[in-house]
């Protein structure tokens, strides 16, 4: 419990640091936010610029602005978007769901498929499936994710037009909840696969290594000698051994998943936070950008804490306090 509190406290500190760093970074960079806002309105005179500065508090000293921003953040107010004139928090919350859905689906796909492939590869190291695993792994590792997505788009847009390649649901869609879930699921297949492929290789490798380790171990030999079926050997003994490293990697991948989601969302027009971030960068919508940075950092921090916790739960022997 004390440990958890300490982790949380440190996480909050970390987030405060992230907010301060990014706030200063964005404000110190060249370019006048007021001019950006004026540009979005369709052009403006000096008087309009001055009134915009006043309205958004841009006329105050930088540190005062930072102070106001921080105290607002504490109260859950991330400011107002320059572009949409709406609370940043609303914009982000409406995009958070799709991103989490995409990231989780990709993660799940990568783990399930990766472990499956890793196990198969370890059982028959020279087999066809092993070769297949190797190929998929290298593609996942070495091919740019947006490129993989585009290749899949060509494949499923022109050659086998069976899966939607754009958006999260059909614009025309009207129907019940269940139909809607199906509709979203169909739209999810390509983006999640594209994002999942990057991480597939890692899980396959981990599973394979764990398997090879375990299959040579004495107790497995004993189990086999006793006539325990092979499938039981694999799933009961070997896989359990692979759970911890996979869990760790999965937790630590969270930041990378968000980075990857950013590209995948762009390719498949997935209405998530990544696209919001990208659009905000192009529009110089700094409040939204700050908000997205804050939220993604928060998600990473949370994922790390959860990983730590589940790690401790999975293996009580680990003394986290004593970790260096």
């Amino acid at each position, binding site marked *: 419990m004390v440990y958890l509190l300490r982790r949380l406290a440190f996480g909050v500190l970390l987030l405060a640091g992230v907010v301060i760093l990014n706030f200063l970074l964005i404000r110190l960079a060249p370019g006048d936010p007021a001019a950006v806002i004026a540009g979005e309105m369709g052009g403006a005179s000096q008087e309009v610029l001055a009134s915009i500065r006043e309205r958004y508090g841009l006329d105050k000293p930088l540190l005062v602005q930072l102070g106001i921003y921080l105290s607002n953040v504490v109260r859950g107010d991330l400011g107002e978007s320059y572009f949409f004139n709406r609370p940043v928090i609303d914009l982000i919350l409406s995009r958070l769901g799709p991103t989490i859905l995409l990231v989780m689906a990709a993660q799940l796909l990568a783990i399930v498929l990766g472990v499956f492939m890793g196990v198969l590869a370890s059982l028959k190291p020279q087999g066809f499936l092993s070769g297949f695993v190797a190929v998929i792994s290298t593609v996942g*590792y*070495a091919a740019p*994710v947006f490129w993989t997505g585009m290749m899949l788009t060509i494949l499923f847009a022109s050659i086998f037009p069976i899966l939607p390649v754009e958006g999260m649901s059909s614009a025309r869609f009207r129907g019940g909840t269940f139909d809607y879930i199906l509709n979203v699921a169909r739209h999810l297949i390509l983006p999640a696969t594209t994002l999942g492929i990057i991480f597939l290789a890692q899980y396959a490798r981990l599973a394979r290594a764990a398997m090879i380790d375990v299959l040579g171990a004495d107790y497995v030999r004993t189990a086999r000698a006793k006539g325990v079926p092979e499938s039981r050997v694999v799933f009961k003994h070997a896989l359990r051994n692979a759970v911890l490293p996979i869990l760790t990697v999965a937790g630590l991948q969270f930041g990378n998943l968000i980075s990857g989601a950013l590209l995948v969302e762009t390719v498949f027009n997935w209405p998530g936070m990544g696209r919001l971030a990208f659009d905000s960068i192009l529009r110089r919508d700094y409040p939204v950008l700050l908000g997205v940075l804050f939220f993604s950092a928060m998600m990473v921090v949370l994922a790390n804490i959860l990983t730590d916790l589940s790690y401790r739960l999975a293996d009580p022997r680990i003394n986290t306090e004593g970790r260096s």
Partner: protein
Amino acid sequence: MSVQETRRAIKPVSPLREAAQMFCRNRPAIFGTVLLSLIVAAVFYGTFISGADPYEIVWAPQAFPGEAENIPLGTDYMGRDILTGLLKGGGPTIAVGLSAALITVVIGISVGAMAGYFGGWADNALMRFTEFFQVLPALLFAMVLVTLFSPTLTTIAIAIGIVSWPQTARLTRAEFLRIRNLEYVTAARAVGAGNNRIIWRVILPNALPPLIVSATLTIGVAILFEAGLSFLGLGDPNTMSWGLMIGANRSYLLDAWWPVTFPGLAIFLTVLAVSLIGDGLNDAFNPKLRQR
């Protein structure tokens, strides 16, 4: 473990030579080396020898590969030769990859070495600092840096370096923690070697093998990063690069697959080659892994 013990155990064979022999027996690694040599040669030709202009409109837009004699890979949406683009665009891509990896390694090793060697509060502070950089999704942070400070090859390389060093730092720290209490370090300290000397001349050389592997892999990651930024339109718009080619031709994907496919393939093969070499080095430096 590893190199140091190997050195003592098997006297007659130098560890480097042994590693080299291991590497040469590793077929994927050899394949990677050959592949990378070919790519580097082609890019070298494109950058320094060929006088072709990748921006020049040479033929009808979106000519199919081989449609005309001199355009084996076809043309892009403006009628620019894709092969020329590949040859010219590889330079910036690889240059950014290399310099970003260099920046990563320099920052990563410095921070990691300090933390691992001195330990205590220095370690604590430095590792907290590192964690700070790890909570921001790297690509997102790099995007922000690049946009705020205008996209040039230099800012892109720096941005990628800034977001990627934490892993190297952690690895370096772990190696330093492991080595700093080994006999020969204690011995060096006993004969009066200063901290500086011990860090750079005694520990670092022995920590190098995994760091070399990690640096190699970082090159691949940095190339992918550059491609991602360019694809999003945040690359240096005045420099032809593979990522830029993909990003620029993206809107025309449905009409012409080749202007997108070939640069992507080029990135894929380069990163693949680099990572095969990295894996090969890893196996060569860690003979224990041979059994796996």
